[in-house]
């Protein structure tokens, strides 16, 4: 009972319900987008934008509204951070995959899972380094670079580095490993340390 209450309070403090709503909105947006007839660029770029939006929603739950006090008193905090972050990422992958079911989701479920996990990992690492409020800077910047990498698939020389995994095929092992590594690092760092507290932003909304 206490554990459930703790999880509920933690989720409320991190605005997890809003994050779930935002992820659901991304899934609905993706579903609507898939109803349209897009050119090759659009078919690859639009899903990636929704995946990035879902990923930044997950990363935005990292900042703590309580800061030092919670860190000192919260013995279960690392586990809560780990569980909530992984659960939200899984929810994002699941919802986006469900939105793409029956539609022409470029790359399919594997692509969506890899992209969401990898970009979420970037957001988590940014939250740990720059502060939770600025965790979005890495994923959004990465989105532009990834869109450009997709563009180069039509306009050589193509960028083929696995670190720009959205431009790699869904079954590409290198891209999957890079995305997985970034996600794992992000989850571990955030679970252990949490987001960096910035003195100027004491209360995250």
């Amino acid at each position, binding site marked *: 009972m206490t554990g459930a209450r703790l999880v509920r309070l933690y989720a409320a403090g991190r*605005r997890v319900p*809003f*994050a779930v709503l*935002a992820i659901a909105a991304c899934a609905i947006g993706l579903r609507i987008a898939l109803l*349209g007839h*897009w*050119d090759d*660029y*659009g078919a690859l*770029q*639009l899903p990636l*934008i929704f995946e*990035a*939006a879902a990923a*930044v*929603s997950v*990363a*935005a*739950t990292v*900042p703590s509204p309580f800061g030092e006090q919670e860190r000192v008193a919260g013995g279960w905090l690392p586990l809560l951070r780990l569980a909530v972050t992984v659960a939200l990422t899984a929810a994002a992958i699941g919802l986006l995959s469900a939105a793409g079911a029956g539609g022409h989701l470029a790359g399919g479920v594997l692509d969506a899972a890899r992209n969401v996990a990898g970009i979420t990992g970037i957001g988590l690492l940014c939250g740990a380094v720059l502060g*939770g*409020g*600025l*965790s*979005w*800077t890495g*994923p*959004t*910047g990465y*989105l*532009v*670079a990834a*869109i*450009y990498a997709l563009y180069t698939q039509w*306009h*050589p020389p193509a960028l083929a580095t696995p670190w720009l995994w959205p431009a790699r095929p869904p079954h590409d092992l290198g891209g999957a490993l890079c995305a997985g590594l970034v996600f794992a690092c992000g989850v571990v760092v955030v679970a252990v340390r949490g987001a960096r507290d910035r003195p*100027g*932003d*004491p*209360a*995250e*909304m």
Partner: protein
Amino acid sequence: MTAATTTPAPARPRPAAAGAGLVTLRLLWLELRHNAMAWMLPLAIGLFWFTTYRKDMAMPPLWYLRAAGLQSGAVLDFAIPVAGAAAWMGSREARRRVADQVTITARARWARLLVPWAATTIWALAGYLGCVAVLYGVTAHQASWGGPLWWPAGVAAASLPAFSAFGFVIGTFLPSRFTAPLAAIAAFFTLAISTNLIQGSVSSWSVAPIVTGPWDRGPQAGVATFYPFLPDLSIAQVMLLAGLTVALLGALALPAGSGSRAARVVAAGLTGAGLLAVATAALLTGTGTMDSHGMIRIPALHDAASDQPLQFTPVCSDTAIPVCLNPAYASYLPATADALAPLLSQLAGLPGAPARIVQVSTTYSQDAGNGVTTRTSGSRASGPRSAIPLMLPDQFPGAGTLTPGQMASQVFAAYGPEIMARVIGDGPAASQAQNTVAAALLLAANQRGLTTGQSSAQQGGGLDASWSPDFAPGTPEYAAAHRFAALPEPARRAWLLRHLAALRAGQITLGQLP
């Protein structure tokens, strides 16, 4: 005591206008020092280098290509950092829970909010102008002719206040930890989806600030080289962006308590005017068509003076028959001349040989269904009969970036047979001897084999080159062509000078070839 209480208090001096200006400047200075956009600049500049600068530098040093790449790239690179940082700044009062404290200050809410927006925009513009300075500076160093195109750079600059206002308004009205990232992605999504809605070359969606010309063709190397850059689309885009900025900033003052009643009325008027400008810009763009020079012409914004060709002195090679290019293509001259020189040296002075080969512009025409056809411009081809019009492979859509060797190969494949046909008269209706001599001369030029007949259509250019003969090994034509090609060049020229008229008249048989 009584006197003290009845004496009216001295009127508080009204702040002088200059003093108020100084206060605003001080406030702006404070905002500049604490603005999130300053911390976003490394991200924006890094993205600019990664996606725009590198791509632009891989293109030929032609001003239109570089400027178009700058506009599209910079808008995309700066959209996310600027919108995100502005949303972050817009949500600051709510995030730090000081909204109540600043509400009671003397300055109106609207005026107070405009200062962080201005600071965000100033930082963004400073970073962007630095990027423009570097890219245009390098291009000025590399380009052989022409000058910077400021309209594309201006469109990208005008997009920054608009993105800043977009993010700031969202951040102000919907403050939360999710606002900045979602505003940034929404700005990027809007740009991405706007171009996906463009069907064909021109539509109302072309007003999106990342569009620099007919969308389905992409930037073409020859555009704005023989004719001036048409700013019609750029004007419409600046109108859209300025209108959007004004409308969004006006919306900041609409809620009750944002300012005096008069200020709110003015803000409502500004919002309406801004939205009107946005709608007008989109409608005007919808009336645009692609002109014959590959740019978008909007009748209501068009200046007829822009239709006059640019004046330039061509750069010419010192080959036997000069090859003359637009000075913007001066760096292409050695490869082009080298490709054609072996052939030109054999044909120079022969009856029917061209006096010059002159580069001409591409003519674009819009087909039914919004498709586009390109062909050689007739304007210069209608000059002296002895000049052959030439278009470089780069001037054709989809040519991509070619190495000098690839370009030389394509130029020879496209124009060698045409020049040859003009002198020798070879072709489907020509005699065996004519076709054999033509093939021999091409072989002698060491540029193409007897069995590699390539039409210019295969080059993706659609040039109107002549037919070229294909001879199978072992045939009499094959042997005769090799025999003729093996002659010393003076002997070939001497034979051609004596027998060219008879050869063109079909009076020479294969057996009479030396």
